[in-house]
């Protein structure tokens, strides 16, 4: 009789791949210690890291208005919102780390501009109405993007997104309420809202990315259950949602070609300037340099705090 052995036969790669495919096909979730194809892991780290970067950089445009908010109520709301964005970034870095990424390294890659963040945050917030429009249009677009991610095939990402989506609803509603308040105000305030809408509408449509025809690799992300809807599908959904909201608010969306098509039940809209999108994504937007400069300063200027806490912990043997 042979002694029992603890050694299990090593499963071969084809076996692991079959098991992975079966989990995806059954709409079950992949969890951190599961075997996964290398491309799946890399695609997820890339997407989650850049999503996290967007949340962190996204604190800046609105943060610029924290000290200029018109009332204590508005200031408290804005502070809570900006703090949420930091939280969202942290949930996402946490998810990226379950894939083997290193949080400090991801931050370095952001500061070195090797990894990107959403192009929308490279536009400046010129007036206080921009705070409202960011909540309404930018966070509204983010909700369109993010709701499908709650069903992402990767468990930690999906769970982070559920938490984020719950909080994002507050972001959009406070923005819309802020704009409604301004629209009930003076003609100058109403003009300020319209001006902000004019500046943010097209960049918001760009948030959904290039047309499907120019996204050759998204089929793989779809198959993996990382991506759930095409860029154009999400953009159309967003336009259809935003048009009646603009009507209630009493603003005009800056697109002469915007028109309801009864045949399809959708709104047709004008051509998007993709050259601008590529320019801004590549680094040539109004505020790219400033966004990165501040993030670098936050890392470098606070390095002494990190070191001091580390020294304290090692001395007191936590």
């Amino acid at each position, binding site marked *: 009789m042979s002694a029992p052995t603890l050694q299990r036969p090593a499963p071969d790669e084809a076996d692991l791949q079959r098991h992975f495919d079966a989990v995806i096909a059954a709409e079950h979730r992949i969890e951190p210690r599961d075997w996964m194809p290398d491309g799946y892991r*890399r695609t997820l780290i890339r997407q989650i890291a850049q*999503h996290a970067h*967007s*949340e962190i950089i996204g604190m800046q445009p609105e943060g610029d208005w924290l000290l200029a908010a018109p009332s204590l109520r508005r200031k408290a709301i804005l502070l809570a919102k900006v703090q949420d964005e930091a939280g969202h970034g942290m949930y996402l870095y946490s998810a990226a780390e379950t894939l083997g990424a290193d949080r400090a*390294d991801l931050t370095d890659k952001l500061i070195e501009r090797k990894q990107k963040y959403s192009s929308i945050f490279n536009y400046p917030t010129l007036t206080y109405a921009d705070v409202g429009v960011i909540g309404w249009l930018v966070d509204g677009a983010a909700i369109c993007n993010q709701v499908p991610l709650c069903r992402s095939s990767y468990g930690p990402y999906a769970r982070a997104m559920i938490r984020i989506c719950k909080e994002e609803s507050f972001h959009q509603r406070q923005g819309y309420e802020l704009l409604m308040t301004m629209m009930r105000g003076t003609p100058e305030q109403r003009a300020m809202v319209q001006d902000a809408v004019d500046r943010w509408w097209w960049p918001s449509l760009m948030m959904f990315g290039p047309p499907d025809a120019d996204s050759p690799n998204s089929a793989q992300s779809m198959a993996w259950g990382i991506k759930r809807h095409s860029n154009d599908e999400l953009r159309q959904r967003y336009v259809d949602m935003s048009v009646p909201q603009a009507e209630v608010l009493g603003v005009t969306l800056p697109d002469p070609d915007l028109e309801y098509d009864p045949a399809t039940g959708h709104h047709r809209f004008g051509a998007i300037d993709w050259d601008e999108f590529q320019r801004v994504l590549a680094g040539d937007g109004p505020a790219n340099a400033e966004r990165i400069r501040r993030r670098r300063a936050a890392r470098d200027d606070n390095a002494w705090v990190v070191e001091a*806490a580390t020294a304290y912990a090692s001395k007191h043997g936590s």
Partner: protein
Amino acid sequence: MSDVTAEGGHGAVPLSPDVPVEPRPAVSRRDWPLYEVFVRGKRGLNHVHVGSLHASDDEMAIDAARDLYTRRNEGVSIWVVRAADITASSPDEKDPLFAPSGDKVYRHPTFYEIPENVPHM
């Protein structure tokens, strides 16, 4: 045009392979240890894993967990534990670790047939 996906949250982000994702080979010296966070949502419920964070020590981990995971009254109690101190089974459902419970249907109440006229059972 490089592949850019909408589903990067607050807008499209590039997913092409030229965006590097290699984890750094050596652990950064700046890094504080990773803590896993568990929150009891309300009295009567178990603590549930909610995510992770980095902190220099246990006390800071609790403070950061409060700020990060309970901004809207999501908890009445928090546990933090260093990720390195957790021992875990493989999550693979085919793992032989869980095989012994697979064929023991007699552990479940529905295994037993009881006539319908037997009350309170």
